[in-house]
């Protein structure tokens, strides 16, 4: 035990004296996060506001066939513009979000009370045209409905006869869960930083030390190798935890100043404490995994080669869930990365994490950490590790 602490303390002293490295790995995240949250948050807010509230300029082809409809659009804050020659090209080149074409037969069909034809030209794969298109659709549906009702009344038919089914919606999203949607990236961020926050120290204290030829004398001391390795892991874990705490504080502060929907995210101290608890096993998995890798590689360079792959790991569940959303099930709380993703989402959405889920999560997380630790301490016994160069 004493050895573990001696080694951990030395590693931390060594790191903290390397001011620049220390500041970079400790502060980059906490500085970047507020910038991202405040910046992106503000961007989303202002876009939504302008797209929803501003006058929508709509190129209309054949406006002269339907003066009534055009007048109705004007009354709904949509400003018809002269129609283009080639609407498809205009939309494809992203010079217009949506184009409305009114058929030449519109007047004829209208007078004979048949469905009159209009055409929306838009690109459904474009995210930013979603709001204008749905605005226009809503207005057109409203127009259609209003005219339909008036026609019914004039023929002595009850307006209600026109609606076979009345659809009412009830949204069960709690305010908290709607806020959570705004933060789909939050789990990735937190898992990433807890997983790799101390990567530098973990790799340097094994692979780097070996490269600097100080590992051989260290391993020639009577201190048990498992203890030396555990000390290095403990040092990296403490550092990772410190950087994680700073990260969470940065989240708390920046979300307090974030605009609109994000401001309502639950960043109360108990939730933050739970997040920290959730992420501690992740820090352990990260530091032991990197120590394990560092014990097998020949050089620091080789160890860094693994970094790009490791950086992708926390992203996997976010990507999979985006393509294939799955229901919460207990087994998910045992899968590293996916488990963190699920439990963090639950916490920030204000849902209750059941006792069973906590137990499965903690046992699986700490178990994975211990397993990696056991493998790493075996590798630490190898002859190759001790002998540098």
């Amino acid at each position, binding site marked *: 035990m004493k*050895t573990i602490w001696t080694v951990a303390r030395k590693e931390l002293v*060594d790191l903290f004296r390397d001011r620049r490295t220390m500041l970079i790995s400790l502060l980059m995240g906490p500085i970047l996060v507020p910038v991202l949250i405040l910046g992106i948050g503000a961007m989303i807010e202002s876009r939504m506001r302008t797209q929803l509230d501003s006058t929508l300029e709509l190129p209309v082809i054949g406006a002269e066939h339907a003066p009534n409809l055009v007048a109705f659009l004007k009354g709904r804050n949509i400003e018809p513009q002269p129609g283009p020659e080639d609407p498809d090209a205009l939309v494809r080149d992203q010079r217009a979000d949506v184009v409305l074409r009114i058929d030449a037969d519109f007047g004829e069909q209208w007078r004979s009370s048949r469905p009159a034809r209009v055409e929306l030209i838009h690109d459904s794969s474009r995210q930013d045209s979603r709001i204008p298109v749905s605005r226009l659709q809503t207005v057109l549906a409203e127009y259609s409905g209003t005219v339909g009702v008036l026609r019914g009344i004039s023929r002595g038919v009850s307006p209600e006869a026109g609606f076979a089914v009345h659809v009412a919606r009830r949204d069960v999203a709690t305010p908290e869960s709607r806020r959570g949607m705004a933060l789909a990236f939050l789990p990735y961020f937190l898992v990433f930083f807890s997983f790799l926050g101390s990567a530098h120290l973990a790799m340097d204290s094994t692979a780097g030390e070996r490269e*600097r030829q*100080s590992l051989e*004398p260290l391993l*020639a001391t009577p201190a048990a190798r498992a203890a030396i390795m555990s000390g290095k892991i403990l040092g990296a874990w403490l550092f990772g935890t410190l950087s994680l705490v700073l990260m969470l504080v940065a989240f708390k502060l920046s979300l307090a100043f974030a605009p609109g929907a994000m401001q309502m995210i639950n960043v109360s101290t108990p939730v933050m404490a739970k997040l920290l608890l959730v992420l501690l096993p992740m820090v352990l998995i990260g530091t032991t995994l990197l120590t394990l890798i560092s014990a097998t590689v020949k050089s620091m360079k080789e160890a860094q080669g693994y970094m790009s792959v490791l950086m992708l790991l926390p992203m996997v569940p976010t990507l999979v869930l985006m393509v294939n959303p799955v229901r919460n099930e207990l087994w998910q709380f045992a899968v590293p990365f996916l488990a963190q993703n699920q439990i963090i989402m639950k916490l920030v959405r204000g849902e209750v994490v059941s006792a069973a889920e906590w137990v499965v999560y903690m046992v699986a997380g700490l178990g994975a950490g211990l397993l990696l630790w056991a493998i790493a301490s075996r590798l630490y016994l190898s002859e190759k590790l001790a002998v540098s160069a």
Partner: protein
Amino acid sequence: MILLENLHKSFKTKGGPVHAVKGVGFQARDGEITGLLGPNGAGKTTTLRMLYTLMSPDQGRIEVDGIDVAADPTAVRQRLGVLPDARGVYKRLTARENVAYFGRLHGLDDATIAARIERMAATLNMRDFLDRRTEGFSQGQRTKTAIARALVHEPRNVILDEPTNGLDVMTTRGLRSFLRELRAEGRCVIFSSHIMQEVAALCDRIVVIAHGEVRAIGTPDELREQTGLADLEDVFVRLADLEEAQA
């Protein structure tokens, strides 16, 4: 007291297995300095690494103060002070902190560590740079720090792998008198080198190693007698078969 018996060690390399040590065996007595002399690549460092338990021999036996290395490596490491071939010191720690770190790993308390550092700083002439960070140290200052670090627990047996490498004349002289002090204290000192004069100036007994084998063991005079040559360098060249290798 250190005893090595019939040590063998081979490594797998890309070009096939290399038999680095082939049946090395010798005894190093307390109160004596034993020199391990051999050209580069003779197997000195590998032999010493097996002695200080970093590698296990494929065959053979090592005893330190009567303790079998294979049976209780930890007890053996406690009795050894090792200056390995790899001399890395932590450059962001001061010389004092470097030594103290190893003292703690040997289980010493702070007061003992402080007293030992004082003593070694005096004998190794380290006072000027003791509290400076080792970044930017000269080769000599680094070696002294590494030696102090290796001996902080005052081991009965001292193993130094090419300690004079890269040192200037005065530092080398200082180191020699330090090793004589260790001998006078009754410790068992093993020290390896590829320079005959170095070994002759200091050692009570010389073990000549070449191509992974022991070629001769004896005092400098005995070796002169054995070969019939007066010049020690010639003795070494003859014993290690260096002429043959050159040709």
